[in-house]
């Protein structure tokens, strides 16, 4: 088994931001806010956040804010709750939450809660438990969770719980590891994990590990590095992570590295991208791989960042 090619991954992430000529850069243009979060969080977990010019990133990020208070994926793009969370997370990484108008961001998110407790992604009203997580995570970082109806939000999430213990995107939707992360994360942040059937869900989640050591997101699907994050973080939040084989998963993630040019792919020998690089590194961090900063499974931010938000004077305001 190889080792984590830290230096190469750092170089890869920095290069994604500079390359102009390939498809990845075109896609990243439209997801720049998410890309910034994935790339910068990975750098931080690898201990290299200092290689970035903070002021430059923050000034670009602030120019993506819409008058409604939400953030777009890039300058001039429509706001969406997805980009709003990424923006808040990036500011948290840099300890720059003070640059935003918290009330404005909060009122944007509050405006997206529906009567049944669910959240829409933007003014067009698409509903999904992903948005419940995003809203709750974002407001918690901003110390404004009390501005929404948490009880109803939790009730809606629980209405998406299935008989296998997992969660779907809407009531009755198939259990999916990505949605499970969102629902369990939201329940963890709101202190409602007692509503999860931990043993049942834990067994479903550990059934996601396949022979190669990788994890899939649903029964009979192929393993993918991104589930190293979604399945693993959920298992940690419900305190059942010791049920899977950590060694085999570590090996699977390391096998997905491009050891020449850096970056991590979805499966061994596929092309790398910044998204899977983040989930691979964050997964290894959850597995306590040496040399990585620990990551918080619910907030998807380094633990020291989360501690700064909640346990310091500035954090507590």
């Amino acid at each position, binding site marked *: 088994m190889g080792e984590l090619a830290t230096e190469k991954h750092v170089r890869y992430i920095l290069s994604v931001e500079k390359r102009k000529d390939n498809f990845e850069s075109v896609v990243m243009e439209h997801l720049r806010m998410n890309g910034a979060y994935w790339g910068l969080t990975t750098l931080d977990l690898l201990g290299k956040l200092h290689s970035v010019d903070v002021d430059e990133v923050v000034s670009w990020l602030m*120019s993506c804010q819409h008058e409604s208070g939400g953030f777009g994926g890039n300058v001039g793009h*429509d706001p969406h709750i997805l980009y709003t969370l990424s923006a808040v997370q990036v500011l948290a990484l840099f300890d720059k939450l003070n640059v935003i108008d918290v009330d404005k961001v909060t009122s944007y998110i509050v405006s997206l809660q529906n009567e049944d407790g669910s959240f829409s992604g933007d003014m067009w009203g698409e509903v999904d438990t992903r948005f419940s997580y995003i809203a709750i995570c974002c407001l918690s970082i901003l110390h404004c969770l009390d501005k929404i109806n948490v009880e109803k939000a939790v009730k809606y999430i629980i209405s998406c719980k299935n008989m296998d213990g997992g969660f779907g995107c809407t009531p009755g939707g198939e259990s999916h590891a990505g949605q499970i992360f969102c629902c369990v994360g939201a329940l963890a942040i709101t202190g409602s994990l007692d509503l999860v059937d931990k043993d049942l869900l834990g067994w479903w989640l550990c059934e996601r590990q396949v022979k190669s050591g990788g994890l899939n997101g649903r029964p009979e699907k192929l393993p993918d590095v991104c589930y190293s994050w979604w399945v693993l973080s959920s298992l940690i939040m419900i305190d059942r992570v010791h049920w899977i084989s950590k060694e085999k998963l570590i090996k699977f993630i390391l096998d997905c590295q491009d050891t020449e040019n850096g970056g991590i792919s979805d499966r061994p020998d596929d092309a790398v991208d910044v998204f899977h690089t983040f989930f691979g590194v964050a997964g290894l961090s959850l597995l306590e791989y040496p040399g990585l900063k620990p990551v918080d499974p619910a907030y998807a931010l380094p633990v020291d960042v989360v501690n700064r938000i909640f346990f310091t004077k500035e954090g507590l305001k």
Partner: protein
Amino acid sequence: MKEGEQQRVPLRERAEWSDVTPLPQNDGPNPVVPIQYTEDFSQVMDYFRAVYLADERSPRALALTAEAVQFNSGNYTVCQVRIKFFRLRLFLFISSLLQVWHFRRLLLESLKVDLNAELDFVERMAAGNSKNYQMWHHRRWVAEKLGPEARKNELEFTKKILSVDAKHYHAWSHRQWVLQALGGWEDELNYCTELLKEDIFNNSAWNQRYFVITRSPFLGGLKAMRESEVLYTIEAIIAYPENESSWRYLRGLYKGETTSWVNDPQVSSVCLKILRTKSNYVFALSTILDLICFGYLPNEDFRDAIDALKTADMDKQNLDDNEKGEQQNLNIAQNICSILEQVDPIRTNYWIWRKSRLPLSA
């Protein structure tokens, strides 16, 4: 690139766009990343920004939005890594296209366009790339506007997508919405049966089946459906005992009624039947373990079948024929855990944990 796309005329060479000045993407005062779009797409977006900011509600604006969103579909092959990138879909929207879709909806409303034609447009797009949150959301918006008249069309549309990818998360999600909002439940159970006939391991189809029997207004609910569904599921289990989905479905049929589950001889006998085949018995064993934990008392047939699965080197609890009742059941449960530790090595720790948590009465 696919055939026919070579003839695409750049916007700046088209007469109908000569009065518009394209508006390039502003990356802010200090772009962290000077990113370049591929040329064609970038040009379409420049025109889009101009039209969008001028709030031009015209047919040509509508046509432009169509051109823009198609860049995100398979109709336009940017490069071979495209396919891989669609795996990024779970948490992604293409944000500038978010804006294009939004504007397109405003245009559809202002121009009073025939929404059935819009459904056709979406369908053509989906033929290229159907894993795009925005497209599905757009489709739902159109179908919602059309109301029940869209029902048949939407069920057909999702069926078509599912015939290519039977686990397509968006398609299933859309289909569930159609059933609940527009109706069409009558044939849904048959549809699930049809899909499961094609692939009995399709967890999405099992999930839909559960959705139908618990939510259809025509079937009378879980209790009314239990008897026939148990028979159906047991048949599926016997055919493929390694199928996680069918076992979970069977358990789900007794949701909230653990006692009926423990006492239903159909459940225990299917387990016994699988154990006796000595192959693919992991789920059968784990089900027996669950049953014992909830008070089921295995008879001698079970004890023999489980004994027969033990291997020589196993750390086993020997069954003493003189032991009766509780102690014997505990030993059986421990044996089951030991077997599972060995035959399901990747989850060894889970089975060890189960063994440590066996209730004394088991």
